[in-house]
């Protein structure tokens, strides 16, 4: 600065020299100019520069702009005068700017406005929230009881029931959407969340916002903030250039809104220029991924769980606890007894020959009533081992005859008492007997069978009546032990029938008792010998024709037990005979 100052002095000196010597200046201007150039020559250029700096407005602007920031800084440190001087201008400028176009200013202060407003609101709400929390905590205790009861009833662990009820929310998807175009900038989703085509969803979300804004003539700046569908909520957080939309299952707390808001702000702060320049390429927004993922929150209401399990003991709570325990114990036994009874009744219902018509509880006792076929299983036996106390069970059964095939057959067996050599079968109303049986049993069965309930027909085609063997008499002449010659045909028929019997008997052991008879004439001892002889004759004949089957035994009846009263010769002829009797010796 020293040199231009010196130049200035020299210049003014030069001027005064010129003033004093005006005549000389005019007479010899050329000499003066020369002199001047000699005297000031080196400084002339600098002088011109100074002149330009002093009087050229453009240069002045440049000069001031160079020192202005420093000057403002220096002056601001000294006193408040500058601030005071600038205040009206700045405020007028802001006012003008807002009036002209509020958007840039709104955009600029957006990142700081949110937190500031939230802070103020949070402080105001915290007092209110505290009392609200207490109310909630009280309601929790009743809910806690209800949950315990539910756990008891369903057999699920209490902790599981609590978790189920305390699932508060889960953020399943987060969309970052370009405000103006509705194009998707970035999308993140939680594991297992159901995701549709996110590009289209993004567009549709934007369209719906436009639709709501247009349709309900909202005020400028008012936007759709939430969509609710069942237990899904879509929270939409607006920013100047981008929208954050979170798809939430359950009831998210207000704090989550703040997380969303902060995320929008952070994204505007970090990706502001990329958002402004967005023309369809989403790649610059890959970096928003971690911010968006921070929004994928989920929460269980564990705090309330603690409240309901870990609070102080008060007399009321102790009593409540005892009542609860008693209730639980009673509930357990009640439930166990109930399950046993249900199982027993279910078994009765499926038991053939038992028809349950009514069950219930009366005077503290279970009762069951219905119809019961006497042939069905005894309910008292069925009750054994179920854990039910028979003294606390009243059973009322009306007898009836079940008509199911099993029961018809069982009833037939019971009333017909078939010998072991007879098999009974029942199908579609038809009772069939097969095997062999005494003539008496056959007669009895014929009579009774069709009277049995459920039996409409009796068939005996495969039943062999032993009468065929036991009825025929092999006759002898007076005082003879040889079979009468006219008995041959009868004898042959007998052989055939015995062969048939052998087939039917199978593995069963059968004995044939051969009884010899005599008429009443002659002495008893003579008759005894005679009848013995006759029996032996028949035995020998049978043996000769049969191959070791069946076993044969001989019984001598003589004339003591006459087959017939001897009133005529024909009666006496009948008594001179041999009869056969089939005896099943099988122990089974």
């Amino acid at each position, binding site marked *: 600065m020293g040199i231009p100052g010196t130049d200035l002095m020299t210049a003014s000196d030069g001027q005064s020299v010129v003033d004093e010597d005006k005549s000389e200046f005019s007479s010899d201007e050329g000499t003066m100019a020369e002199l001047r150039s000699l005297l000031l020559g080196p400084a002339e250029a600098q002088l011109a520069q100074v002149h330009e700096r002093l009087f050229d407005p453009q240069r002045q602007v440049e000069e001031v702009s160079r020192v202005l920031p420093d000057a403002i800084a220096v002056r601001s440190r000294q006193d408040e005068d500058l601030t005071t001087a600038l205040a009206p201008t700045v405020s007028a400028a802001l006012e003008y700017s807002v009036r002209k176009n509020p958007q840039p200013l709104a955009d600029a202060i957006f990142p700081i406005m949110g937190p500031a407003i939230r802070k103020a609101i949070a402080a105001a709400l915290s007092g209110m929230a505290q009392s609200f929390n207490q109310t909630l905590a009280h309601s929790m205790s009743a809910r806690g009881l209800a949950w315990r009861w539910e756990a008891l009833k369903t057999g699920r662990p209490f902790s599981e029931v609590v978790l189920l009820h305390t699932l508060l929310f889960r953020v399943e998807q987060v969309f970052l959407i370009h405000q103006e175009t509705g*194009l*998707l900038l970035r999308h993140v989703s939680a594991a297992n969340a159901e995701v549709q085509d996110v*590009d*289209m969803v993004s567009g*549709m979300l934007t*369209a719906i916002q436009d639709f709501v804004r247009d349709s309900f003539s909202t005020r400028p700046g008012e936007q759709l903030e939430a969509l609710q569908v069942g237990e899904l909520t879509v929270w939409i957080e607006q920013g100047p250039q981008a929208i954050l939309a979170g798809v939430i299952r359950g009831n998210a707390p207000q704090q989550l809104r703040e997380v969303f808001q902060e995320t929008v702000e952070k994204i505007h702060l970090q990706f502001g220029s990329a958002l402004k320049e967005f*023309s369809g390429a*989403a790649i610059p927004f890959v970096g928003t991924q971690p911010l968006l993922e921070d929004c994928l929150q989920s929460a269980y209401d564990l705090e309330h769980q603690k409240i309901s399990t870990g609070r102080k003991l008060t007399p009321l709570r102790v009593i409540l606890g005892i009542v609860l325990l008693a209730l639980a114990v009673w509930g357990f036994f009640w439930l166990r007894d109930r399950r046993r009874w249900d199982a027993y009744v279910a078994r009765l219902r499926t038991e053939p020959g038992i028809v349950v018509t009514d069950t219930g509880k009366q005077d503290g006792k279970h009762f069951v009533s219905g119809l019961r076929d006497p042939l069905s299983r005894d309910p008292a036996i069925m009750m054994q081992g179920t854990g039910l106390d028979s003294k606390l069970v009243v059973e009322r059964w009306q007898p009836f005859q079940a008509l199911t095939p099993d029961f018809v057959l069982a009833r037939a067996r019971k009333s017909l008492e078939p010998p072991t050599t007879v098999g009974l079968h029942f199908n579609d109303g038809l009772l069939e007997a097969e095997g062999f049986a005494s003539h008496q049993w056959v007669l009895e069965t014929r009579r009774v069978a069709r009277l049995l309930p459920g039996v409409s027909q009796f068939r005996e085609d495969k039943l062999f009546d032993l009468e065929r063997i036991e009825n025929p008499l092999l006759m002898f002449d007076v005082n003879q032990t040889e079979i009468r010659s006219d008995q041959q045909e009868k004898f042959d028929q007998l052989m055939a029938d015995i062969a048939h019997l052998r087939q039917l008997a199978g593995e069963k052991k059968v004995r044939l008792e051969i009884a010899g008879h005599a008429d009443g004439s002659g002495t008893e001892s003579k008759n005894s010998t005679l009848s013995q002889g006759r029996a032996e004759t028949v035995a020998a004949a049978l043996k000769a024709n049969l191959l070791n089957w069946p076993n044969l035994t001989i019984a001598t009846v003589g004339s003591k037990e006459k087959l017939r009263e001897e009133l005529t010769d024909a009666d006496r002829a009948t008594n001179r005979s041999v009869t056969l009797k089939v005896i099943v010796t099988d122990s089974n």
Partner: protein
Amino acid sequence: MIQKKVCMLGTFAVGKTSLVRRFVESIYSEKYHTTVGVKIDKKVVQLDSSELMLILWDIEGTETEHELRKSYLRGAAGYLLVVDGTRQDTLYKALALQTRVNETLGPVPFLLLMNKLDLADQWRISERETAALREKGWEVIQTSAKTGFGVEDAFHGLAKKLSGA
């Protein structure tokens, strides 16, 4: 992949929805037209060296250009203006519509689609009219949603304009 918002515009029953139905991916039913007034679909167009994803805003047809919801146009990079070649009035309505859209969006790329070419015997738009439009600098493509004629070309043509190729 670059994405672009594209609007389908035109009056009632010119076949906008039919045009997109066969050629785009869609998850929304056509009910959205009568409820929200717009249906979003997606079409990925393969260009020479890249792919472009068109997010199509199929906007409900209106009788006059004044009924158009301008907010649905916001941010659109281009649009397809659809007319029904068998109804001359749809062309004049489309001209009015284009003026209005131009006011909102500015000079963004668009194509004029003359649809229903399959009904050639009922065609009501003259060669001269078409030529006049082309002279105006408009790109006109004849399409048939029914046969698919020209539809891929239309989407492809718009995509090309949008990508600046």
